[in-house]
């Protein structure tokens, strides 16, 4: 530490150190204030809603709010033998309130998911209540058991108790084709009903293969573009940039025209004698269509990062390798290829991230066997209206993408993304 005499002062007598720190702080605030509007805007309209998706996906307060007294009296129940009169009574009271509010149907549906057959025995109880057949002065327990023998089955009461916590992981388990069974263990659904796992694997498979295809097709042309003289490469660059700037739907439409059974691709196959005219293969509404269309649509995202890296590699390096006795292949493999790895990483991860969340193209050309997880999310958002399940699957997908994004950031850094 400097002593009092050595301290340098600014013209207004403040120590330089203090004054500098102040200026530094002011600059920090200034810089932050510039970013603040966008940051705030994104937080409100985007980041918080994504966080809200999480609470929505685990929210299970519906039953908790519908049967408050039941859950209170169930707190001490161990779930081994049939519940006491007190529990039956509070369940009856809760259900009566629901009947008056006409919300009993929802409870029936929800509990039926937990234990099959619940809905029908609740309907019987509903009929008794609406006809005022329950004598509230006598034992409620005996009367309810009298309605249907299932009410004396402990499993049904355990099912109610399972819905007590306000939060549930059920939607996430459902997204992986699993569920909590009656003993509270995670089990898999029957083999023929495991649809989600197929979708996850298919999404992964398509994203992976599209990335590989894009790499195999993108690497040679990026290399050609980077090594050709400017006047030719600029012209060829249009072939990459025009699709890049063209509407996704236009490009999907053109693939739908090309790949249809009477389309040009099939015409060509018939012409060269690959297939017979009356036996044209179906190339759309299956995986083939998805692969072809997605590869063409995502190819520019592979070529552009590769090109920008290859452009910086001096051609004299490969020439030096050759002059020192390397064959063209060794020179390429030992010198050129390792230098392009940053571009390969950037391109592959970009294409993979985009492919894994693709929605429009698979929905239009994919048919039933080409749909991806995004289509399933949209289906639950728009058709079944199971928003909490859609949120859960969305977040599972997001976690996957975040992992890839994190790797991307480690390898190339987000601020190194180049556009065009």
């Amino acid at each position, binding site marked *: 530490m400097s002593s009092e005499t050595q301290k340098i002062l600014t013209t207004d007598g403040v120590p330089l150190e203090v004054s500098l720190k102040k200026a530094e702080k002011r600059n920090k605030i200034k810089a932050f204030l510039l970013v603040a509007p966008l940051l705030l805007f994104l937080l409100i309209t985007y980041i918080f809603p994504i966080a809200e998706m999480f609470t929505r996906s685990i929210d299970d307060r519906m039953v908790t709010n519908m049967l408050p007294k039941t859950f209170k009296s169930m707190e001490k129940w161990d779930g081994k033998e049939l519940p006491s009169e007190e529990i039956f009574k509070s369940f009856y009271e809760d259900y009566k309130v629901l009947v008056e509010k006409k919300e009993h149907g929802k409870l029936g549906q929800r509990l039926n998911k937990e234990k099959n057959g619940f809905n029908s025995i609740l309907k019987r109880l509903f009929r008794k209540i609406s006809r005022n057949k329950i004598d509230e002065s006598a034992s409620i327990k005996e009367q309810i058991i009298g309605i249907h023998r299932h009410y004396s089955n402990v499993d049904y009461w355990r099912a109610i108790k399972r819905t007590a916590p306000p939060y549930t992981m059920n939607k996430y388990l459902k997204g992986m084709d699993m569920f909590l069974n009656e003993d509270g263990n995670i089990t898999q659904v029957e083999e023929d009903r495991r649809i989600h796992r197929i979708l996850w694997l298919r999404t992964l498979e398509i994203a992976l293969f599209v990335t590989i295809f894009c790499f195999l097709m993108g690497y040679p042309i990026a290399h050609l573009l980077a090594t050709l003289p400017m006047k030719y490469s600029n012209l060829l660059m249009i072939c990459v940039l025009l699709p890049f700037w063209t509407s996704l739907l*236009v490009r999907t439409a053109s693939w739908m025209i090309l790949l249809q059974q009477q389309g040009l691709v099939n015409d060509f196959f018939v012409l060269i004698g690959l297939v017979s005219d009356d036996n044209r293969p179906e190339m759309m509404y299956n995986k083939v269509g998805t692969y072809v269309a997605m590869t063409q649509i995502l190819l520019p995202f592979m070529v552009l990062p590769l090109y920008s890296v290859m452009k910086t590699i001096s051609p004299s390096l490969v020439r030096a390798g050759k002059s020192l006795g390397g064959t063209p292949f060794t020179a390429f493999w030992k010198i050129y290829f390792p230098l392009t790895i940053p571009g390969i990483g950037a391109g592959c991860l970009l294409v993979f991230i985009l492919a894994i969340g693709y929605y429009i193209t698979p929905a239009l050309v994919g048919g039933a066997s080409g749909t991806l997880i995004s289509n399933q999310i949209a289906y639950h958002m728009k058709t079944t209206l199971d928003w909490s399940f859609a949120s859960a699957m969305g977040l599972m997908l997001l976690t996957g993408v975040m992992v890839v994004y994190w790797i991307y950031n480690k390898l190339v850094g987000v601020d190194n993304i180049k556009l065009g």
Partner: protein
Amino acid sequence: MALPKYTETRYRIWHYFYISLCTFVFFFLIAPLFVIFPLSFNAEEFLVFSEGMKKLDPDAFSLRWYEEMIYGTKNPWGLAAKNSFIIAIFATIGSIILGTLAALGLSSRHMPYKGIIMATLISPMIVPLIISGVAIFFFMAKAGLAATHTGIIFAHIVLGTPFVVITVTATLSGFDHSVTRAASSLGSHPVNTFMKITLPLILPGVISGGLFAFVTSFDEVVVVLFLAGLDNTTIPVQMWTGLREQLSPTILAVATCLIILSTLILVTAELLRRRSERLRGINR
């Protein structure tokens, strides 16, 4: 790309293989776009080349689908085009303002937590659109902005700003800060310095970021599908419904117009990029 005379046969073969592979890929990239042009002039109602078209019979070609697109009864394209342009223009303006300000802040060496803030600002570009769509839909539904132009514009600002942030930060990375310091030392007000010195220098970056934001908004369909009501339909949404339901050649007429638009945008973007490179070259 002529080969030297002494090239061995196997490398010669390899070279021709490489050239034909590249030709195939370029063809694969660009050819699909050119299928649309001739078919949009089809006189018939089917999306295949008719016998007459293959023989170049003039009667097989017509402008009827363009007529249909512009004057057709009950046709949605007019409204869709109007909506698309309104939404894209406002979304672009919003993205440019918010994105440029943020990029200026991020490029300052005093900016705290640069990494995490940059990652947050760019996240809408990385997060799959379907997830953005769901999240934004929840927000807009709560804020009462679902099925309004404002809601869609806000959503597109979210999706468009990352492009502006990226292009403007890239432009600013080659920016010589001594010119702004010189302006300040000559007594210029910071706002004045920005308008007179910084902005003209980073303008190519701002505009090309704006072009990205415009195209993103103009082409965006996933989020709009969640948000739009009947009055907010846009060109991509109409194309989406058209492609799913009745594949009529009118769509191809619209697609042709969109390809022409994207060609214009491509040319503008290219010119801007070159200009920006030239300007930055001078600074160095």
